[in-house]
């Protein structure tokens, strides 16, 4: 092997470790340090559904081009888990670097890669790390070694460690000492691993922050006026609520009493029941869950829809069906959430794809739920919710809270009559009165049973039919109110790529790859259900549309086919779900394959 020019700011590292060993902290230090140097980074944590002792992988991507999709290949491997090391090593491309503990049971056996044995024990001894902390500190050894190999700036490392161990100076010192010792060792032991990859300061992250989608959503909810939170723990949604609980005291200090009640319910049925009760009584209420919880919430979702109570439900998706893979990412609850409930139920669903959207949708969901008087679902996923992403800082909302059509006692006093479900404005939405309203006209008994305009129990066929027609009118109102798709039109493109949520980076990067292969594409990222006319326009503009999504059944494709039946056959499908975020080369290849199929089909049918 000859020594090529170092590759600068465009590579990736995979750290294979054992979960519960603190390696996530080490990975975060590494990521943050490079981010501090102004270089775009992204990370994907692949962790097992257990607490301690099982294999885990972290992939850190460094990309001056700003790509943040999961990389298809990582030329640097930190092989700190002997159990998976052989398989991990087999994934390393030729010429890649493999860091591993010199004192461990495993050595890489490949001639076409560059091994680098790290004297972990010796470094920890040298720093004097005590017995209890050794397993954790061991991970800082690879951070230090990589800092040396990649030439990470010291100030950036310091800032990263300080941020990570915020407020615990002894921890900061200890970890920095390990990092520096490892750095010094690596600097003093030149090897072919040096100068192959390096980082170099940029200005691409100035003013940006690193955050996960669950935290973004939590801050959004707090800013959006959440008043009642009921939840039941489930991966990967738990950290949304836990983050909300941890930010609440700072953002909404309870000086005159708590302004938000957070209750861990006994299960997801109760969680949504509490949310619906709270929404009915006038608070902004939400829950967060994942697939199994969504399934359990089905009956209450139908009640919320039909009794017309606001509610916000975050579904941080993981891989299903059933318990599935709790710690892997998917986009496979789209259909079940949209239609959640028996007997003609349909919901409003927001589809955030960025940290800023997680933040803003958390607020918008409340505005919509209260305006539309209905449950609003927000579909995030493990990749968005639990991985760390770069983001611009969020902006403080400019609009006041939109609390919808609520009649106070004073409002009622001005009316001669009041019917809860009269469609006064023609948008399908009646006027609510909140419990506690003292006006004699205000009281009403909400219900999931058939009722007339005055919310009185009714089995009359005409009452039923009229009420359902109004609910569909309301659905049309929702269609106009939800966020428009994010469209990027390429003037020459005959091909449109369509997706939603966390696949955006892979699709964006795949467009560049397709362009390089001579195929110009437009793209549309759907932001909400129900789908609007812009969606049809985009599809109408493109001869071939390929819908890219992370589920097995092509669920968005199905909804698009139903939305514009006239174009049903021009919608190709790349539906893939194996628990890992998509990579750009995979998307490119699949799109090419689908296009070929569609072209052949078009040829055949045109003959």
């Amino acid at each position, binding site marked *: 092997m000859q020594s090529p020019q170092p590759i600068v700011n465009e590579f990736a590292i995979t750290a294979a470790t054992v979960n519960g060993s603190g390696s996530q902290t080490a990975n975060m230090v590494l990521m*943050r340090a490079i981010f*501090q140097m102004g270089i775009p980074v992204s990370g994907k944590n692949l962790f097992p559904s257990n607490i301690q002792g099982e294999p885990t992988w972290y992939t850190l991507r460094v990309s001056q081009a700003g790509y943040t999709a999961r990389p298809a290949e990582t030329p640097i491997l930190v092989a700190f888990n002997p159990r998976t090391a052989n398989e991990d090593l087999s994934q390393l491309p030729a010429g890649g670097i493999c860091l591993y503990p010199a004192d461990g049971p495993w050595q890489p056996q490949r001639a076409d890669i560059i091994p680098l044995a790290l004297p972990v024990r010796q470094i920890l001894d040298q720093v004097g790390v005590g017995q209890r902390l050794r397993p954790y500190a061991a991970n800082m050894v690879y951070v230090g070694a990589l800092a040396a190999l990649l030439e990470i700036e010291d100030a950036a490392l310091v800032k990263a460690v300080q941020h990570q161990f915020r407020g615990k100076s002894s921890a900061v010192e200890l970890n920095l000492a390990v990092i520096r010792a490892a750095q010094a060792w690596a600097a003093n032991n030149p090897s072919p691993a040096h100068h192959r990859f390096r980082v170099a300061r940029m200005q691409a992250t100035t*003013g*940006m*922050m*690193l955050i996960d989608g669950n935290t973004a959503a939590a*801050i959004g909810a*707090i*800013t959006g*006026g959440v*008043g*009642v939170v*009921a939840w039941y723990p489930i991966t990967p949604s738990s950290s949304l609520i836990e983050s909300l609980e941890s930010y609440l005291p700072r*953002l*909404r*200090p309870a000086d*005159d*009493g*708590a*302004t938000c*009640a957070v*209750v861990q319910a*006994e*299960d997801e*049925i*109760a*969680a*949504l*029941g*509490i949310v*619906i*009760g*709270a*929404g*009915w*009584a*006038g*608070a*902004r209420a939400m829950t967060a869950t994942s697939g199994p919880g969504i399934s359990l919430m089905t*009956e209450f979702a139908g*009640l919320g829809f039909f*009794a017309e109570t606001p509610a916000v439900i975050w579904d941080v998706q993981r891989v299903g069906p059933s318990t599935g893979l709790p710690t892997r990412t998917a986009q496979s609850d789209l259909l079940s959430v949209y239609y959640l409930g028996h007997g003609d139920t349909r919901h409003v669903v927001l589809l955030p794809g960025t940290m800023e959207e997680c933040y803003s949708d958390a607020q918008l969901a409340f505005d919509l739920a209260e305006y539309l008087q209905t449950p609003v679902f927000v579909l995030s996923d493990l990749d968005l919710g639990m991985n760390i992403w770069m983001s611009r*800082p969020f902006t*403080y*909302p400019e609009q*006041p809270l939109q609390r919808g059509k609520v009649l106070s006692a004073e409002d009622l006093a001005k009316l001669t009559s009041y019917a809860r479900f009269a469609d006064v404005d023609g948008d399908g939405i009646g006027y609510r*009165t*909140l*419990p*506690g*309203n*003292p*006006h*004699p006209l205000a*009281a009403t*008994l*909400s*219900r*999931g*049973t058939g009722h007339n305009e005055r919310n009185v129990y009714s089995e009359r066929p005409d009452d039923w039919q009229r009420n359902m027609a109004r609910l569909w009118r309301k659905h049309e109102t929702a269609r106009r109110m939800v966020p428009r798709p994010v469209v990027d039109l390429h003037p020459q493109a005959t091909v449109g790529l369509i997706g939603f949520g966390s696949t955006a980076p892979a699709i964006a990067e795949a467009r560049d790859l397709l362009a390089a292969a001579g195929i110009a594409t437009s793209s549309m990222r759907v932001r909400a259900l129900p789908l609007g006319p812009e969606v049809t326009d985009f599809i109408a503009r493109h001869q071939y549309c390929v819908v890219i999504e992370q589920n097995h059944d092509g669920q968005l494709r199905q909804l698009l086919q139903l939305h514009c039946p006239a174009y049903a056959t021009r919608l190709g499908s790349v539906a893939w779900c194996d628990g890992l975020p998509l990579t750009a080369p995979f998307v490119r290849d699949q799109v090419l394959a689908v296009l070929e199929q569609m072209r052949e089909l078009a040829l055949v049918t045109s003959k």
Partner: protein
Amino acid sequence: MTQAPVNAIGLTKNDYRGAPSTLCAGCGHDSVASQIIAAAFELSLQPHTVIRMSGIGCSSKSAAYFLGRSHGFNSLHGRMPSVTTGAHLANHTLRPLAVSGDGDTASIGLGQFIHLLRRNVPIVYIVENNGVYGLTKGQFSATADEGQELKHAGVNHLPPIDVCAEAILAGCGFVARSFAGDAKQVRELIKAAFNFHGAAVIDVISPCVTFNNHDRSTKSYTYGKTHESPIHDISFIPHYEEVTIDYEPGEARDVQLHDGPVIRLRKLHRDHDPTDRMAALALLEEARAANEFVTGLIYLNERRPTLAETLGIGRTPIAALPEERLRPSRAAFAAVMAELAGE
């Protein structure tokens, strides 16, 4: 024409009624509804401060038949407790009055029932217990007695769930049992429950005249009338100031509630200290073993904070907080953003 009497806030009894009942003529649930109406009238409740909550069943339907000037939610089968919990959190100044059935509470709803009581949501929870599913036409519920026979459903071989014992175990501080045929006791218990600071459960045996009123049924009018054995004669005295000690020592006891009113328990056949948790469980267990139909205030303990108190909710209900309090200040928001940006 004589005017209907009005209460302290100027309302007539009629103001506490609801829609006309669609239950079977003679259904126990209608008697309970009457006593709810009477109690609310006598307590001079402001209708808008009460919310009526229910699940699904004949019993739950009856939420429509009282307190028509109160908001309410006739929710899902077995899930009223969670909806009520949410309403309490959103507005803890409202007092939930709930009716449920034995199927709604003890079959499908058992888990929610127990967890509601653990949280001590200050609900008045009336179980209209008839041992059957009325609305679905006469199947056994989980409170049906062992060995009981029903026309279509045959013989029940499972032990009944005792909602009072479950309530006590769950930490509920006001647990009573009564009989729809004992109007006065039901009414006094409801009034006392309304003044209790915390969750209050009243298990009212409420005969289903259509499906479970034959003489051998322990949930029938005949059985109730011939077997009811009240542990005390209960009266609710709204203000302590009015209390006059008109009994001999040992004949009765007064229990004062935290806001001043008093529950007076005039001893009947047996000694029972309702503030003793173990004694309460023992009373239920003995009655069960002896097939006795014991009614009255079985357990009373007002010590636990309500859920809203546990969570530190302030005076203003969350539902009524102004925007300033529902949103972070710009400064607090900016500080968090700065921290996240690593500044």
